[in-house]
């Protein structure tokens, strides 16, 4: 198949399917039958699987070429490279798991048809973000992604907590997008073009516009990527959203913000490596703050949300160190950052799905919208052995314990940091290592609670878990364990993605 056609289909398929799913589902609501909704759900799964196939065929041709594949839609340049491949892979895997998971979870919810439609739009926009090669389209797809998530976060519009979370997320994210747009405008004003390849050589190290633009970009996209202190929207949004959406948000949406930021910062980094230092320091702050805040949480989903802030910190450390000193030491840090992006998507996705499964059977199935708290988990393992086991795998993986994938991705990041061979970078290694242990202080007690004999009241009264929920969780678990013992499986994608750090656009 023609690769250009494949890439364009990869982009447009979910976007075109989204309104179709909405209409199919809507017909169900209007007619009062279930048929349309069932069709809509099946169609969604089909589209995602198809998207997966398209990604596979595109990647098959691209892998091993060690460069990007460029094509045009009209006058707009798009390119498929390592980052695009990674983003598409993550969004397809997570999207598939979340869709299956949501079949029982979102059953009979008011606005169910909008959920799947928006999910497909989200998937499409993330694919689009991955393949954008110029500033404007990058921002457009970033906005489309943000807009899809606004409604998804505030999905339970009858619940005041959800509305509040959605509104805060909307406002803060809009501020971020505006700042990012200002940053793009500043950079455009200096170069006269939005095409990233043209930025090489457009700035000198003393140009104040470079710094103004760069800071606006980092802060603007950083709001979405949950950099501290821009992160304050995240605990509310990720805990109030339906659990499948929490998984998507933590797993790929905040990473998409990071990717968008990196696309631009990589080019700016050619002029001065200070951007790497900023990301490295901010990353360390993220790790510490995320861990300390999670330590005191009693609501499970909020705890996982703070954990996401810390995990983004690990990625920032990996990317930051390659940007700062990569020209002498290679791309291991960035490759580790992308690897951690993938493993975090799997592990945090699994954690949110497991927490969501428990939230559903213990509260939501009874129409109770109260949050899942730690006390609810007591003794859950006897009644829900599979969910408890998989939740434990996810949590231990997030804590960086082998044989889960999180251990290997953190290792790769730290190899990148250690390659700097300076005393303060070794100190960063020790700092990150100690923080990983600190995170165990809030992950491990959850596991201990689940494996108690004495059950909490809600567990005793809980419903059964549907296999629609179990199956995607098993898929994610297998992925986590496989990568934990065979980390080089994903190197063919993460290494080319990281190579862009040192030679954007292949020259």
């Amino acid at each position, binding site marked *: 198949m023609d690769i250009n056609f494949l890439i364009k289909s990869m982009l447009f398929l979910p976007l075109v399917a989204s309104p179709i799913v909405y209409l199919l589902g809507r017909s169900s609501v209007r007619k009062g039958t279930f048929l349309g909704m069932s069709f809509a759900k099946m169609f969604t799964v089909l589209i995602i699987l198809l998207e997966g196939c398209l990604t596979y065929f595109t990647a098959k041709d691209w892998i091993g070429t060690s460069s990007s594949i460029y094509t045009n839609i009209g006058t707009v340049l798009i390119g498929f490279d390592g980052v695009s491949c990674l983003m598409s892979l993550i969004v397809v895997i997570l999207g598939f798991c979340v869709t299956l998971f949501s079949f029982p979870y979102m059953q009979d919810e008011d606005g169910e048809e909008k959920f799947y439609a928006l999910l497909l739009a989200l998937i499409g926009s993330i694919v689009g973000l991955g393949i954008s090669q110029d500033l404007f389209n990058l921002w457009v797809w970033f906005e489309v992604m943000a807009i899809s998530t606004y409604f998804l976060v505030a999905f339970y519009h009858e619940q005041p907590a959800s509305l509040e979370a959605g*509104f*805060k997320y909307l*406002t*803060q994210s809009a*501020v*971020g997008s505006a*700042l990012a747009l200002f940053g793009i405008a500043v950079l455009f004003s200096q170069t006269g073009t939005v095409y990233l390849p043209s930025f090489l050589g457009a700035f000198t190290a003393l140009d104040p516009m470079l*710094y103004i633009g760069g*800071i*606006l970009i980092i*802060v603007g996209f*950083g*709001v979405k990527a949950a950099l501290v*202190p*821009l992160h*304050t929207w995240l*605990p*509310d949004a990720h805990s109030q959203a339906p659990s499948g959406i929490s998984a998507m948000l933590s797993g790929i949406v905040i990473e998409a913000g990071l990717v968008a930021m990196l696309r631009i910062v990589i080019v700016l980094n050619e002029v001065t490596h*200070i951007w790497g230092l*900023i990301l490295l320091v901010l990353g360390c702050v993220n790790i510490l*703050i995320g861990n*300390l*805040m999670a*330590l*005191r949480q009693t609501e499970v989903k909020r705890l996982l949300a703070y954990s996401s802030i810390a995990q983004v910190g690990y990625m920032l450390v990996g990317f930051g160190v390659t940007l700062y000193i990569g020209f002498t030491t290679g791309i*291991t840090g960035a*490759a*580790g950052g992308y690897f951690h992006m993938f493993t975090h998507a799997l592990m945090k996705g699994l954690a949110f799905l497991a927490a969501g499964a428990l939230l559903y059977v213990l509260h939501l199935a009874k129409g109770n919208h109260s949050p899942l708290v730690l006390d609810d988990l007591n003794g859950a393992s006897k009644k829900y*052995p599979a969910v408890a*086991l998989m939740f434990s795998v996810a949590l*231990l993986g997030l804590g960086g*314990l*082998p*044989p889960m994938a999180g*251990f290997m991705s953190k*290792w*790769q990041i*730290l*190899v990148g940091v*250690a*390659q700097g*061979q300076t005393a303060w970078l*070794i100190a960063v*290694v*020790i700092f990150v*290592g*100690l923080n*990983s*242990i600190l995170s*165990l*202080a809030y992950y*491990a*007690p959850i596991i*201990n609670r689940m*494996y*108690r*004999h004495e059950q909490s009241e809600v567990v005793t009264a809980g419903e059964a878990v549907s296999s629609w929920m179990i199956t995607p969780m098993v898929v994610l678990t297998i992925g986590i364990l496989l990568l934990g013992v*065979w*980390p*080089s499986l994903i190197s063919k994608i993460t290494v080319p993605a990281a190579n862009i750090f040192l030679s954007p656009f292949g020259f």
Partner: protein
Amino acid sequence: MSSNLLIPLIIGVPWLGALIILLDKDRHEKLQHSLAVIISLAAAAAAVLLIPQTSKEVAFSVKMGSAFGNFSFVADGLGVFLTLIATIIGSLAVIFSVNYMHGEEGLGRYYAYVLFFIGAMSGLVLTSNMLLIFFFWEITALCSYGLISFHNDDPKAVRGGIKALIITSVGGVGLLAGALLLFVYTQSYDLNVFLSNPSVLPAKMLAFLGFMFLVAAAAKSAQFPFQTWLPDAMEAPSPISALIHAATMVNAGVYLLARFFPAFAGIPYWKEAVMAVGVLSAFLAAIMALFSNDLKRVLAYSTVSQLGYMFYAIGTGDVFSSQFHLFSHSIFKALLFLGAGAVIHCVGTRDMTKMGGVGKKMPYVQWMFIIGALALAGIPVLNGFWSKELILEAGAATDVKVLYWIMVFVAGLTALYTCRMVWMVFFGEPRSDYHAHRAGAAMKIALAPLAAGALVSWLSIDWFSKLLNSGSLPFHTLKALDLTEMFHEVFTLQTLIPLAVIAVGILCWFFRAKLAGITKLFGWLRYLADHSFGFEGINTGIVKATQNCAEGLRVTQTGILGLNILAVLCTIIILFSLFAIGV
């Protein structure tokens, strides 16, 4: 069978077994017990078959790309020896568990963790890839945590498990930093590449590496200043205390130092530091053992103390005697823990003040335990005597005689607390109204080989020396001995000193009534011992400080949208200012 098949079997079969037992979902208890026993025995058999395959060649290797190195395994003498201990004592602990864990809920989780541990421990000592050493190191920490907190409803057990996980992982950061540095400077994860040329690291880096590894080893082996986790780990079921916290995992620290000794021996003050850690641990732990009334805690302190001997031996430069004591200690300590487990299981309490006269009700266990106790105290001719004497001989040959004398004194203390322990449990009149039933068949079967080992394992020193000196450890110069050489070493006038001190220790117990006045003088020591010489206070302080920090940070999540956005704008201003100043 060749080693490239055996090594994957030794690691893989227990891991597969763990998965199968988990999948049974606790439906068939008998099946779980039988399967666990068969699998652990299979792993032990594979380990035995590995003995003739000992060599320095890489047995098995998988390429994993540049950031992860080659996942390679070597069946050298040190690795094979420790694998044998892990799998054989592992099988005995599993056999013991058939009785001990009979009817327990969550049996699948128990056996899964145990088998997973056995595979990981074997992997730890058989691999030559630094990443994998850290990989298996952390897996053993995970299994230890899971098994200590096995009874999740008991808050003490959960606290003990998390404490063990955190303290050993903090030490693990030392191993992490060291392993990364090794890779960065040698461009290889293969530790043999490093051992063949340690000077590839600049001297400062080598020293940093050596001390980082010492920190990791001390934390794993519950040495000073990390000794507080091991006594609290006694909440684990006794077979686990025997396997993980006596015979195998805590020896990982000793293994690490022994493995890297050729590279670190030359670092200024490194050997002295190792000796100091060993002596301090041995001394403080012996005192804590003397004052404790909890049977398992006494044994835990005793383990810390004996590991101190092994560290001391490495510090003197005699890696061989440290490994030989590891060998003896694994056997007699596992014996003691399993024996204690039998007593606790049948009597229903860990408190020695409530025991007494158990020997009349459980004669078999009593004699097994006494054999272990004699070995621990260093009474001739049990295995503990020979290995402890070798260490003391090595210590006498060093310049720092003070440390030697302290270790001799500790030998006396060991004899004293061992006597006290045996007496309080098995002899005298029952001090409470306990009901003791006899130990089950599986328990007795597990104890017998260990007791036999404690009596005669020292006779195998020829074979042991051959295993370590077979040329499979090209960078180590081990002062290996055969039987006659060992007699020569031990049967000297020097040996009479520790023997005399041990005799004094034993006599002190039997004349304790006459010494009651002196004992009262040491009341302040009891207070210190019960509070772990202030280290428990340090732990609590760190935990409280972290929690307070976290609680204090909560104000930053105001929930007020305006403030959130203000934070965004402030970030821009701060970053601008930093640039304006810097640029």
